[in-house]
């Protein structure tokens, strides 16, 4: 198993764990109507931005990977980014059309949308890499 496949599996497991923990956390926060959550949310958003910058840097430099692996990783990243963009666009419009122009939505909807979009795009990124390598291994045999 090469490094890129290992990294994809770690990302896949990490994203899945984050979805479960994040969903539990948000559900609890909504259920108990937690207030004063702004510092915690700021911390989470700062962490997300730092993770995104680190990720973009690691993809652009591709440290430790050869040119083909970098190409596979970049292609998977582009596909997952497109997914994220379309997900956000569709989610925003669906909410708009469902709730109507003059209605309001709960305040937790937007961060949930953002987190779900990010995590699903992570899963797509890892899945694209794993599928590509699985197809190549199948071709080898």
């Amino acid at each position, binding site marked *: 198993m*090469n490094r890129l496949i290992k990294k994809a599996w770690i990302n896949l497991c990490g994203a899945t764990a984050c979805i479960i923990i994040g969903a539990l956390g948000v559900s609890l926060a909504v259920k108990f109507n937690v207030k004063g959550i702004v510092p915690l949310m700021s911390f989470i958003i700062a962490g997300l931005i730092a993770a995104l910058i680190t990720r973009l840097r690691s993809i652009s430099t591709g440290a430790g990977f*050869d*040119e*083909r*692996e970098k190409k596979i990783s970049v292609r998977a990243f582009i596909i997952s980014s497109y997914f994220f963009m379309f997900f956000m666009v569709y989610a925003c419009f669906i909410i708009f059309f469902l709730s109507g122009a003059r209605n309001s939505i709960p305040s937790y909807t937007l961060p949930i949308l953002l987190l779900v979009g990010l995590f699903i795009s992570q899963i797509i990124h890892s899945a694209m890499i794993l599928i590509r*390598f699985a197809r*190549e291994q199948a*071709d*080898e045999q």
Partner: protein
Amino acid sequence: MSSNQITNNIRKLRFENDEMTQQKLADKAGVTRQTIIAIEAGKYSPSLTLAFKIADAFGVPIEDVFQYQQQDLKTNNESES
């Protein structure tokens, strides 16, 4: 519309060079064995740098390893002959 293809003699050259393994070639070129497999099978076209490294590993000019074939030209030549 023309479809371009890069063919290679890596397999032949490996066997001519003391049956060099794909792993050994990969180590010399600084890539993974999977990349060599993909190039050898014609599923991945290497960058110019990697192509030179592979040629260098065999100690031959790059044109002895990789050949560029333009599909429509080849078809025309075949129909003429």
